């Protein structure tokens, strides 16, 4: 999936005109998990809506699997099947009387026969960890927030996309709900071999899940690097109001305090190991520094 020189202007030619994207070049590779981060209003949500032809580029183009995406062209239906897009607060799009019917909405739009639809619904609910027999007949409006969100994710998975784009999938959930969703996404990436694009404000989530980070700032690509390299540039990230994962932050502070730790560790586990390694191997620090 490739974007070339993507520019998007909202409400062009009116007093409310605003430029959301100012020339974005980006390639998403098959099978990777890409983290898309950036301050509020940096154009993340606008960018991903080009991935499946919901928005028309003002300039530039988007190519998915060698086919250019143009809203209105017949190829768009194909692209929408390949690229599953999950909006922020996706539980607000639920509408059917039962969970089963809601998840079945996508497959039914594809014109599949009832057995195939049922099969896909069971499979998708299984992916998000909801028992189809128990949850299928319930009303989506009787579920908890986290469960509703998982139903919405299942609704997109039922299209059997190759690429899954998630716009802040953990916003507004409690810690247990967050862990659940993130675990499911990791599983979809590893086991179902989905390409994942994750928009998030949580650097910890990005560090845990993604291999590569793209930072958007004021409608441009500010940084595009593997996670470790990206989060090694703490100062650059902080200059645009972003941050690094908490574990990296702790290491950076230790280093500033004189402990010679490496700072390209991203998770709490990695940071622990690193601190233990330095403390055990580098006895000189505690004796001379005291």
């Amino acid at each position, binding site marked *: 999936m490739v974007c070339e020189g993507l520019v998007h202007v909202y409400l062009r030619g009116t007093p409310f005109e605003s430029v959301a994207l100012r020339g974005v070049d980006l390639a998403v590779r098959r099978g990777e998990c890409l983290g898309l981060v950036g301050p509020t209003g940096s154009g993340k949500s606008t960018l991903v809506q080009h991935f499946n032809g*919901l928005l028309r580029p003002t300039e530039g183009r988007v190519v998915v699997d060698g086919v250019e995406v143009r809203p209105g062209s017949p190829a768009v239906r194909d692209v929408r099947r390949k690229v599953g897009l999950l909006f922020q607060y996706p539980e*607000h799009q639920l509408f059917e009387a039962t969970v089963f019917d809601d998840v079945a*909405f996508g497959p039914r739009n594809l014109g599949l026969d009832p057995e195939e639809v049922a099969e896909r619904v069971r499979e998708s609910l299984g992916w998000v960890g909801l028992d189809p027999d128990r949850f299928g007949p319930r009303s989506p409006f009787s579920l908890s927030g986290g469960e509703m969100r998982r139903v919405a994710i299942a609704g997109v998975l039922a299209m059997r996309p190759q690429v899954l784009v998630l716009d802040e999938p953990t916003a507004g959930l409690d810690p247990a709900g967050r862990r659940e969703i993130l675990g499911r996404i990791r599983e979809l990436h590893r086991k179902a071999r989905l390409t994942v694009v994750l928009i998030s404000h949580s650097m910890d989530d990005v560090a845990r899940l993604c291999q590569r980070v793209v930072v958007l700032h004021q409608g441009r690509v500010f940084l595009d690097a593997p996670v470790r390299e990206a989060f090694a540039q703490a100062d650059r990230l902080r200059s645009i109001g972003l941050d690094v994962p908490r574990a990296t932050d702790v290491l950076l502070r230790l280093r500033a305090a004189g402990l010679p730790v490496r700072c390209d560790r991203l998770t709490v586990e990695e940071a622990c190991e690193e601190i233990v390694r330095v403390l055990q191997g580098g006895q000189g620090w505690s004796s001379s520094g005291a």
Partner: protein
Amino acid sequence: MELLRSLTIGQYVPRASPVHRLDPRTKILATTLLLVVVFLARDFRGLGLFGVFVAGVVALSQVPAGFVLRGLRPVWFLLLLTLVLQVFFGGGSGGTVLWKLGPLVATREGLVQGLFVTARLVLLVVSTSLLTYTTSPVELADGMERLLAPFRRVGVPAHELAMMMTIALRFIPTLVEETEKIMKAQMARGANLDTGGPLRRARALVPILVPLFVSAFRRAEELALAMEARGYRGGEGRTRMKQLRYRGQDTVAGVVVVLASLLVLWVGRT
């Protein structure tokens, strides 16, 4: 998607023009007067003069002319229908025949009549939308409330009406945005919104309307709670931060509008 965004009727365009600075009451009354005048004008000279006046106000308001014309887009079908109906049926029988198709006869009188009625509608839409382009919803509601205040004695709930209007206007863009988002979300799940017969299309609306209503009710509840939390108990004894005050410019504007109206009516007399 762009279709929803092109809905410009009733949108405020913030500018620092003399028209924007007028008291909302002046603008509401002036617009009402202009509405009456546009229906009283009986020939093209009157309408032309009216058009010149409205164009002058548009120029003075600094609202881009293209934007004003775009406000006509939602009603173009109505305009076209009016024109066609008038061309065929507006001239009455016995006019000069221009063109014939079976029982349909287009007359010269009908054409003139059609153009006249269409021009009248265009001016009607432009002059009323000018009010909402230059007056923020809050000002508008304030002005309405004050204008309706004298009628409170005969049971008109002025404050409640104004509050309802403010809230309704405030939530139009929010709901439009929400609709757009839900449409996109359902399209991402393969929903087909613009093909098929009328029945299919009506059915395709269900996945959009249900979430929209759910979220509208949720918003209403949240808003009610937020208003109560800030001590709102209706209009009784409520003071305001920005008091409306008539100033010299309002007198000038009022006089200009009245003179223009009289001129339009005088040109069209006979």
